[in-house]
């Protein structure tokens, strides 16, 4: 430990510098959080091979789609600086190595072995900065016969077994409606970087961490895998996966890897019956079921003796679910949630993105969405951290960078190059493609 009398840094990762070669979603989602925790994130970009800023399907209507107007890019890349640099030129390679020599962490999510081919593999970088924490985030990892395979979230989810565990019996897998493994791959990238940093600070030793998006998904199926390796029971079986239920009626009573085998345990339509007017209700015990019956106004059907036991409720789920839905359709999903929860019944609304941003009183209370100004996009809400650190709070402190916004600051300030060298680098294609139109802020930077 260092001297206790020194003033503690304001954020957990103050003083940590990350060279961020990542793009698209998983890698940038990782470094976004390291940035919120206080690390200086230097995003290395090149407009000719950009995938993340473009194509954009989240540019506000009325704005030109260009490298600086993707809403999703903005939310995914807050808290970072952007350095445009042609790493595939000898001059660019030399400059990035000088930057790495002054950095703590390198994160990249290129296809396996791309950076090695460019001369930026772990052995080279450890030669420049012996205690570097080097995190590779790729689809299948750098080790293993399929290291060259490529992924997008849905493909990693399919190959790893995640997709299979979601859906209704006798139907195709419903899977995940987004790249869950881009979000989660990003989590693992950040977790690996932090773990490597902690170990470095304790021992002085860096290392290479080979994280794979597809492989990271497999441990999320742990109990299903053990059911097979221990009990010999696979997931290809009648009644599985059981949709939102804990068990599908009329099939063998086997666990669902989500929670206890109980009923009711389902999604129900709510008033007024639009696309996202649904709630979920779960009763873990007889007592919770009796409370739900009370909340529903003790309708006659619910008093049937056959519903008084968990075995009876599991057997007669169709009747119970129909009865609950007849009631739930009379209430809005938030009113239903409040009534159930006030009585100690497990219920929640199905929430769309709009619901979360506008209607969720808990997220509002906790400050989950916070407006930030972006020079091209204007003022918009950005997602905050789901944890509050009492001494070093994580927070968004900068909108996503315009491409190359910090090139001068880094090249002249951090690396100590001259303004003439900066201008020469723009002319010779080191800091921006020589023949590509520059943004106005680049012209300002070069004056």
């Amino acid at each position: 430990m260092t001297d206790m009398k020194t003033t503690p840094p304001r954020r957990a990762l103050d003083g940590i510098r990350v060279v961020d070669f990542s793009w698209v979603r998983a890698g940038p989602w990782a470094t976004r959080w390291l940035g919120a925790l206080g690390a200086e994130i230097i995003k290395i970009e090149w407009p000719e091979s950009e995938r993340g800023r473009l194509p954009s399907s989240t540019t506000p209507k009325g704005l030109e789609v260009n490298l600086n107007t993707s809403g999703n890019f903005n939310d995914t890349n807050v808290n970072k600086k952007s350095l445009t640099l042609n790493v595939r030129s000898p001059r660019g390679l030399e400059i990035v190595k000088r930057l790495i020599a002054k950095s703590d962490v390198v994160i990249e999510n290129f296809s396996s072995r791309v950076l090695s081919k460019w001369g930026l593999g772990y052995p080279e970088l450890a030669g420049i900065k012996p205690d570097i924490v080097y995190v590779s985030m790729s689809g299948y990892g750098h080790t293993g016969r399929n290291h060259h395979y490529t992924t997008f979230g849905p493909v990693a989810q399919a190959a790893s077994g995640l997709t299979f565990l979601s859906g209704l019996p006798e139907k195709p897998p419903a899977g995940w409606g987004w790249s869950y493994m881009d979000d989660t791959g990003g989590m693992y990238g950040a977790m690996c970087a932090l773990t490597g940093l902690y170990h470095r600070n304790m021992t002085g030793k860096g290392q290479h961490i080979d994280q794979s998006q597809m492989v990271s998904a497999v441990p999320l199926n742990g109990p299903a895998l053990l059911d097979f390796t221990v009990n010999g029971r696979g997931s290809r079986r009648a009644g599985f996966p059981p949709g939102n239920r804990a068990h599908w009626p009329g099939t063998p009573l086997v666990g669902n890897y989500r929670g206890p085998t109980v009923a009711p345990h389902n999604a129900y339509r709510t008033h007024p019956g639009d696309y996202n007017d649904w709630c979920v209700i779960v009763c873990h015990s007889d007592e919770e079921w009796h409370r739900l019956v009370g909340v529903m106004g003790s309708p006659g059907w619910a008093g049937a003796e056959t519903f008084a036991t968990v075995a009876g409720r599991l057997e007669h789920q169709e009747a119970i679910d129909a009865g609950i839905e007849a009631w739930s359709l009379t209430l809005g999903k938030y009113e239903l949630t409040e009534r159930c929860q006030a009585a100690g019944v497990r219920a929640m609304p199905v929430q769309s993105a709009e619901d979360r941003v506008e209607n969720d009183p808990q997220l509002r209370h906790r400050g989950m969405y916070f407006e930030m100004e972006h020079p091209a996009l204007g003022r918009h809400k950005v997602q905050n951290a789901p944890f509050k650190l009492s001494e070093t709070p994580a927070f968004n402190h900068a909108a996503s960078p315009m491409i190359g916004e910090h090139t001068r600051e880094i090249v002249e300030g951090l690396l100590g190059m001259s303004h003439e060298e900066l201008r020469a680098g723009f002319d010779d294609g080191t800091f921006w493609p020589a023949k590509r139109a520059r943004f106005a802020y680049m012209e300002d930077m070069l004056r």
Partner: protein
Amino acid sequence: MTDTHSAAGPLAGLRDLELADEKGQFCGKLLADLGADVIKIEPPGGEATRRAGPFLDDIPHPDRSLSFWYYNTSKRGITLAIETADGGRLFRELAIGADVILETSKPGRLASLGLDYEALARGNAGLVMCALTPFGQDGPWRDYATADLLHMAAGGEMASCGYDEADAPNAPPIAPGGGNAWHMGGHFAYMAIMAALVHRTVSGRGQYIDASIHEACALTTESAIANYVYRGETLLRQTGRHHAPGPSPRTQFLAKDGTYVCALVAGRLNPKYVQELAALFDAFGFAHDLADPKYRDAKAIAEATSHIIDDLVAGFIASHPAEAIYHAAQDRGFTWAAVRAPEDLLDDGHLRDRGFWKTVEHPELGRSFVYPGEAAIYNGTPWRISRRAPLLGEHNVEIFCGELGLSRGELSVLAESRVI
């Protein structure tokens, strides 16, 4: 035990006390498999998660829950009623030597026992304590009851997952399976704990972390929030593929062996891609018309999208086994995969090459079982399971007598009083 004698994990030397049910045990497993000494503190009689099925040979027993086994690898386990005077005292003694406390109890419970962060940190300024709870320590929903399904609803996962009308008419939103609310919360909690620990290496000081599972879930729907914030869009649920503002072409196709293949084709169709598709079809002897010169034109390809996807790609996949298509397609640069059931993964050569599967001994049973391993390979400090989950109270003697200095007689008295 799995190779406990070789190099230590990156968190070696770190001690974590875990007061956690299903909400926090995964975060604790990550810490433990990465080398921390995690002491799981269960109520006498065992944590509720010992009652989670499936069970070994379908015989329910606190030491036979496969879910408990999986989520508690590499930990040591003791029993302690922290709400008793003796239990509280022993917990405080353990807390003095702890680096991290991870707890998932109802907000306010630990404070009511005098075991809140302020009290525990008085004797341990470097303590990092993380409360991982459904909604955090404050707010109108703070005391709401939850379950994985409830988090998948409120967090926004369900609004994005479900079926095309053609696949399942009138289907509800479908919550992803597998208990992922606890994974999402655990990932963010792990991140926060490690950030606090990194900070502690510089400042010497610990801190308190208030982490919310609901917020973690609400953050885990990729671009859904941006689609709303920047475009005002509500997204459609579609079978096995991305939510979208409007319907997009299907990506899941049934193969000859009854397994689906996830083939991302739409949005990628250009003359080069069509040529590569033709070569893939040719390699399997599958008849097609893609050699027609008209397919050198992007506009003609766009007009034939439905033919290429619904006739050719679907027909090709239907005529061969999923796994063969997956590997042949990936070898040619297609981002495709078989939609595998978890058990199919045991045959995966790539995972075998990475040493992913771990054999974990259960000495009390005289048996060993294969467990899934780690998400990443650390070249300096291994991430791996060091032992099976603890039996109920397995380390009571080792920790209460060996570390805290209780006599066997005192231990017996505490057991008789239901303190341990």
